Structures are given as structure tokens and as C-alpha cells.
């Protein structure tokens, strides 16, 4: 195993760990407002680390550039989605719209 492969493995492992921790955060936090916070690191930190791992192995070829574009898109989309979802929840609670469960 070369140094770059080992470094890529470390980046990807850390990225996967961040994603799984954020899944746990989304599941375990009690209120929807609190769950929303864990979408941030999942969309920003995880994909950036994994894209960095791919770039370490593949360089800035097609694979590296597309991974970077995907990570950038997720990072830009995350705050937009967080705000939109939080605003929907705020309006529902303010207007006393029943917060139904899915079952």
C-alpha cells in the first residue's frame, strides 16, 4: 500500500464515519429542528472528505473533477434545504397544522 493509497483510505474512512454519525444524530435527536442540524456535516464534511480521497487516488481527472462538483453541489444545497425545511416546520407550528406521523 502506497502512502497516497493509505492517505485516501484514511480520508474515506473518516468521511464514512462522519456520515454514519450524522445518520445517528438525525435519528436520535428528539425535535425536527434539532435533527436538521446534522444534515450540515453530512452534506459538507463527508462528501468533501470522500471527494478528497478520490482525488488523492485518481488525480484531477474526470473522476476527481466530478467528485468535487458533486461535493460542491451538496455543500451549496445543504443550507438552502435546511432553511426551507425549518421554515416549513415553523409555519406549520405557528399555524397549528397537525404534525402527523407517517404510520
Amino acid at each position, binding site marked *: 500500500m502506497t502512502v497516497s493509497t493509505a492517505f485516501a483510505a484514511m480520508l474515506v474512512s473518516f468521511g464514512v464515519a462522519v456520515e454514519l454519525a450524522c445518520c445517528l444524530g438525525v435519528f436520535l435527536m428528539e*425535535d425536527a429542528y434539532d435533527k*436538521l442540524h446534522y444534515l*450540515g456535516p453530512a452534506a*459538507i464534511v463527508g462528501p468533501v472528505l470522500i471527494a478528497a480521497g478520490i482525488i488523492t487516488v485518481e488525480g484531477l481527472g474526470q473522476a476527481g473533477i466530478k467528485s468535487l462538483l458533486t461535493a460542491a453541489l451538496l455543500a451549496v444545497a445543504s443550507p438552502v434545504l435546511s432553511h426551507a425545511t425549518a421554515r416549513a416546520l415553523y409555519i406549520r407550528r405557528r399555524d397549528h397544522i397537525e404534525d402527523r406521523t407517517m404510520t
Partner: protein
Amino acid sequence: MEQRDSEPRGRISLFTFWLVWWAALLTVWFLLVGVFTLAELAVGTLAAAIAATVAAVVHRSGYIRFSPRLVWLRETPTVVWGVITDCGLLAGALWRRVVRREHVRGVMVRVAFAYGGDNGRDGARRALVNFAVSLTPNSYVVDIDPESDSLLVHRLVPGPLDPVLTREVARASLEEEDL
């Protein structure tokens, strides 16, 4: 009294706007395609021209008023540092929830925020403040209230406000004093 800089001093021409969009989209095309051939250049030029035209038509119609200032980019390192530190705060909150089985509840904070007018400069400021605050994982903007000139922010771990928010609160206080 400080004159509020609400509109850009010089409007860029529609052609310049179209050209910038066309160049940016053609760059994205080649990043996605990965090969630089004559056929790809022809198709990319046409596709970018169509999309740039749509962007120019939307811009001309006035539906989207977005005129940011380049100097606002100086906040980027602060925001990036905020993302990193906030990940630590969220990790701590998760630790308290999972290991110590504590009830972790966030707080809703209403801060003063100068809403401004219905123009490109103020619209860009509202959008970018919202983006910067919501990008840092410990906080996100829930609502912007034009009537009370305030921002409703949810924070998972209570603490000092983000530097971007602190600056906006100071700006709102300054404008209130001017009035």
C-alpha cells in the same frame, strides 16, 4: 447620516451578463465532458448559449434581484472556520445524547437584522447572510421578518453568535440609531 449603498453604482450591460454566463457554462460543460474536441466545443457552445440566453431573459425580467458586492467574499475564511468548529459542537451534542443520555434541545434566537429594501443589493445581502448562517452546522435561519427587522435563528448548542450574525446585528443597531 450614512448613505445606504442599496444599488450597484454601474449596471453591467446585458451582453456582458450573457457573456459571463456563457463562459461559465462552457467551462462547466468541458469539466463534465472531459475531452476537448471540435464536436464537443460546437455542442457546448450551443448549449451554453441557450442556457445563457435563458439566464439573461430572467435577469432582464427583474424576477431575481441579486447584486452582491465582491468585498463580501472576505467573510469566506470566517464561515469556513465556523463550519469546522461547529462540527465539533455537534459532535459534543451527539456524545451527550448517545453516551450520557442527556436531553439535547436547541434554542430559537431572534436577532436584530436590517431587512432593507426590495432591491438587488439588499436582496443579495439577505440571501448571503441566510446562506452563511445556515452553512455553519450549529445554526440555521428559520425566518426573516421584514416587519420587525429581525432574523429567527435556531442553534443546537447555545453560545456566542456567528461573526456574520454579530456584524448584521451591529449594522441593524447602527441603522436604528440613524433613524
